[in-house]
């Protein structure tokens, strides 16, 4: 039976999600940009 030969597997994306630090840096840059937009 081909279904029986079809093994169960657990898969995951090869790529990693962005790190906390990377997202934190983006957030800081966004806040600074938003601030500069308000002052000009």
């Amino acid at each position: 039976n081909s279904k029986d030969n079809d093994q169960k597997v657990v898969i995951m994306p090869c790529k990693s999600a962005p790190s906390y630090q990377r997202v934190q840096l983006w957030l800081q840059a966004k806040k600074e940009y938003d601030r500069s937009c308000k002052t000009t």
Partner: protein
Amino acid sequence: MTTLTRQDLNFGQVVADILCEFLEVAIHLILYVREVYPTGIFQKRKKYNVPVQMSCHPELNQYIQDTLHCIKPLIEKNDAEKVVVVIMDKEHHPVERFVFEISQPPLLSVSSDALLSHVEQLLRAFILKISVCDAILDNNPPGCTFTMLVHTREAATRNMEKIQVIKDFPWIVADEQEVQMREPRLIPLKTMTSDIVKMQLYVEERAQKMP
């Protein structure tokens, strides 16, 4: 009342669309509630008629979308047994796993739009459970990241390959390290049974989270 089989037009697609839309909201909310990312990147939105928190970080949003884009064909063909959001510590060991166990009936009875409205109500209950789950979970150590796992079958992964190439988003078989957790505490969050899908959500939490 009309009865459709899985082979009928759009049945699998409709279920996959509904589930992937739900999973997207659920993943964003889990990342917010479990503080995997800074709270500043999340914005309040309304989904399923309840407030939720969704990320506005482009790279993270793309990552979640690409993941779901690859999972969708598996759900469509009823080949995704479990979809898991794994939160890992700095050493890449799982500290929490949010397990969505999915099963679809071979037959679908479509009565009216009330069916979809009923499913929406059931999914709303999941969202509400996720939004308060931090009350029953221990804090995670700092510096956590996350990944997604899909429990499927070998043949189904071969069918995924074309999509992986198109999206430039390859998948690999997970290591034991990502799959196994020592002495997990099992916390059932929600179960739903509808005409189109059965789903169970539970959390597996590592007993000793802090290093």
